[in-house]
């Protein structure tokens, strides 16, 4: 694996925005392939959930640990992995206070002050939209190639 070590001297290839689309793509695609290999074909929902978790994990890793939301996501993933619990669906009900609704949506938002919450929301939204674009691209290319 020394070739990998020697080749990885390149910092962020896209200096224009913080989280790297390329690294996100690599991580996610790798995770996707792993999931497809490891989960049996009989449980597509289970695989779907794993893929979703893989998506969030690759997002969080790409964002780095400097972000509170990425730390919260990774914490949640690792805890869930240990306890093997099903991820609860976090539906944001229309709260009277919008800040509370936002806190429920953004991971790790409960323990933040409002100012940090807005900042984290911005970063989280950016990463989420990149992830969605990536997944959409994969689906499109997969559907166009496979059919």
């Amino acid at each position: 694996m020394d070739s990998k070590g020697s080749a990885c001297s390149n910092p962020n290839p896209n200096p224009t925005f913080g989280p790297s689309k390329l690294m996100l793509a690599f991580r996610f695609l790798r995770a996707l392939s792993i999931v497809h290999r490891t989960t049996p074909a009989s449980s597509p929902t289970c695989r779907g959930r794993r893929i979703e978790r893989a998506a969030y994990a690759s997002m969080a890793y790409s964002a780095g640990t400097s972000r509170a939301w990425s730390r919260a996501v990774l914490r949640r993933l690792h805890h869930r992995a240990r306890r093997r619990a099903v991820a609860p669906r976090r539906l944001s009900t229309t709260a009277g206070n919008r800040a509370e609704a936002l806190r429920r949506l953004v991971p790790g938002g409960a323990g933040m002050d409002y100012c940090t919450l807005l900042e984290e929301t911005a970063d989280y939204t950016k990463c989420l939209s990149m992830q969605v674009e990536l997944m959409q691209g994969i689906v499109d290319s997969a559907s166009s190639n496979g059919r």
Partner: protein
Amino acid sequence: MEPGGSSGVGSVNSGTYTPEIAESLRFEEEIQSLIDPSFDASSAAGGSFTALLGLPANQAVELLHHPGPGEPPASAASSSPIAGDLWRLRLVEQHAVTDTLRLPFGCSSTFPSDAALVERAARFSVFATDDSPASSSGGGLSPELKAEPPDSHSPPTLPVPAEKPRRPSKRKECEKSKAKAVAKKSKSAEENTSAAKPAAEENTSGDKLPYVHVRARRGQATDSHSLAERARREKINARMKLLQELVPGCSKITGTALVLDEIINHVQSLQRQVEFLSMKLAAVNPRIDFSGLDHILSAECGPLAMGSGCGGGASDPATWASETAASTGGIRRMPPPQQIWHLDLVHPQQSSTVWENNGAAHPHFLLSPATSLVGYDPASSVPLNSNQLKTEL
């Protein structure tokens, strides 16, 4: 004389506060007429409390300094609750008929020539709302103040007490321009405690986040509380603007509440999209080979990223991509993509050998536990991140 001083006070509670100098003049005239029956209201037109003081200076002093008429202290009222003063002024009016204005003034305040008290008295000149001359001007002014949204107190960090000392100096500017919600909020919050609190005090934004872009005004924010408050507010506003730019279609929405709603909807929709797409990906086993990867990445990043990033990350996708290609049976498709990577690889001649070597390394590399799917990132082009990843795991 007054048709019920208490009813006047009651009307104060229902009215709005009118910090207009004209109001204060009317109030002064009224008081003056009470105090001095021979006082001609028209003559005091255009005057201020100084005029009031000028005329019956001795009388005013005597009236208000019940125990001992000394020289009028000029700065008494700012600390004492002004409501107490004007309650007693009300009593003054009531007693004017019966008594010689023997005023049970606990505080040693008088009508100082300070403009602060002028404004404060003007604020409470809604006492005179049941008088037609006063109410006309009061009615003219109250709509513009009623237009201000009420202070909802939902931002708990609004330092009401801290803004008290700033109020008098700001009042005159407030009277001139209307959009000073902060000062008025603080005043209303202060008046909440006083009897003369006008009930309908609105915020300009009219929602849960009453942050208005308040320019720094003269004589404002000498204390650290309000400075920190303003800094925090501007930070929050800057971040809201950032969010507005991020979320599509948000820049034309005015009002923080709607913007926040839009942001919440956008985040929710993104999360739902992730879930939906992951289900779709689970159903469709994407035959990802390098041609597919190329297509995806070029659609997103553009050729520049490919050129610069592939040198760093090439070996990583090379390993697992070959794995996926093998699993999907598309091994024959490897050589053409290999050439693409060859253009970018730093050591092209090693690539084939690299892949052979890594073919053996595949099992333990890719058989990372399913729990930490992306835990091991050997070719992470950001070494710092990889260290962080290890600590994370």
